[in-house]
């Protein structure tokens, strides 16, 4: 077996790698905390905007181009600029945590935004007309027809965002924060390639596990009627 692979497996199998304040378990929790907070903040921004754009059809061109353009922003660059701008203005750890959060929120907004407005737009036109015909107001149509109809695409936007967040949250370690990125940064600094590779594997596994979890949530949350309709198509 390749030497690095063997050392990586040894590192993963060593109980000392998992426990303690710098262990995989604690680092994974830190990683998840930062990831979920970022997803929440991004969703609070992107879902309402996406619903509004999808429902009214207004400023659609802006949302489309913004979602595309923001994807091109390099996360590492945003992190450096945000840290250097915020260091003189904030005290303590917040000066590092806020920039990391900003980076991940910026990263997560495009997939959630486009999933949301696309979902609303894709709602069955016949269902929307029927709702209007029944005398529902615009807000009622949005709440009772469009949001439930858009839910599968909103959730897939959230899932896509979360995959990217978990992968990218490793860069928080560059500015001294915790999370699984510590294994990559510290491993590289001390030329401990087994630790780097092991840490990268843990990130990948965590990302897939959370993705499956969100898929399960989606299955429970989406109206069974929609699922059947999707299958029928």
């Amino acid at each position, binding site marked *: 077996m390749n030497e690095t692979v063997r050392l990586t497996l040894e590192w993963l199998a060593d109980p000392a790698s998992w426990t303690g304040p710098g262990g995989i378990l604690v680092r994974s929790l830190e990683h998840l905390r930062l990831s979920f907070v970022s997803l929440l903040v991004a969703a609070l921004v992107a879902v309402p905007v996406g619903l509004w754009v999808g429902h009214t059809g207004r400023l659609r061109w802006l949302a489309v181009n913004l979602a595309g353009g923001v994807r091109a922003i390099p996360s590492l660059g945003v992190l450096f600029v945000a840290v250097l701008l915020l260091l003189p203005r904030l005290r303590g750890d917040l000066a590092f945590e806020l920039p990391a959060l900003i980076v991940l929120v910026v990263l997560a907004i495009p997939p959630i935004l486009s999933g949301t407005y696309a979902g609303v737009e894709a709602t069955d036109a016949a269902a929307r007309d029927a709702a209007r015909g029944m005398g529902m107001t615009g807000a009622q149509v949005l709440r009772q027809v469009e949001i439930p109809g858009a839910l599968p695409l909103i959730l897939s936007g959230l899932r896509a965002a979360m995959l990217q967040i978990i992968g990218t949250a490793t860069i928080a*370690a560059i*500015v001294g924060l915790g999370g699984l990125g*510590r294994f990559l940064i510290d491993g590289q*600094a001390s030329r401990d390639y087994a630790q780097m590779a092991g840490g990268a594997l843990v990130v990948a596994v965590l990302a897939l596990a959370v993705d499956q979890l969100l898929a399960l949530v989606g299955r429970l949350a989406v109206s069974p009627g929609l699922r059947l309709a999707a299958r029928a198509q």
Partner: protein
Amino acid sequence: MRRTSVPVLSLALGAALTLSACGGGGDPLDAGSRSGSQDAGTSSEAAAGTGDGEVIVGSANFPENVLLAEIYAAALDDAGVEVTKRLNIGSREAYMAGLEDGSINLIPEYTGGLATFLNPEIDVTSSEEVLADAQANLPEGLQLLDISAAEDKDSLVVTGETADELGLTSIADLKGKEGDLVLGGPPEFETRPNGVDGLKEVYGLEFGEFRSLAAGSNLTVQALKNGQVDAANIFTTDPAIQENGFVVLEDPESLFAAQNVVPLISSDVVNPAVEEALNAVSAALTTENLTAMMVEVVSEGQDPAQVARAFVDGI
């Protein structure tokens, strides 16, 4: 507040550009730039008088080493030695190969870095011992001339206010006060023997927290300046130390290995004129004047060749 963010931002962008430019520059060993000695006539006459031909000065790929190479080149030029410059070669691995195959034959070195490169097991830290160790392990055909007092080495740095407040002049003064302090530095500082572990073993210091800052010394400097860390691991010649009034804590127990600047040269090109010129440079160099020159080069953007020329003229 607002004004400070502009240079900070440009530094960050500059760092990012430098990073992204890595690997694009071609091989400096191929295209040596000629030191245009205007008075070529007198130079070659003098060179003829002292024996043989030209000295090819190389440098590593960071600004301070380039500056030092320019200083050597200027001093040799004044001594009537024909000089060619091949600067910005790369890491020690790259330029040591160049020294051995003769594509360069002089480079500014640092005793500790060189000694560790030649003997990874080295466990001495004082200037004399480190120099002796490096000399003992030098490849055949290479030699070190006089070392200078100038050192570019790891150090523990605090802000002027912290130094006043806690009465710090030496690392040892931190004893008993470090529990509430945050130490910052590159991630490798946490694990290597003369980092966090060494501070504990040699000085009995256990900082409240270690914050690992992987984005270069600029981030560490900003974090120290703005109070996110209270003490930081920064190189002694970092221009930020002078600019921000930071205090470099003395290291009475030599935790950080000596890194005296020293000319590493092929024995082939050593003659009395070369030796005298380079030893005069070493005698004049100090950490302070090297740092001051680094401020001119890095912060003020002056041409290293001109800064070097002014320094050599002042010797």
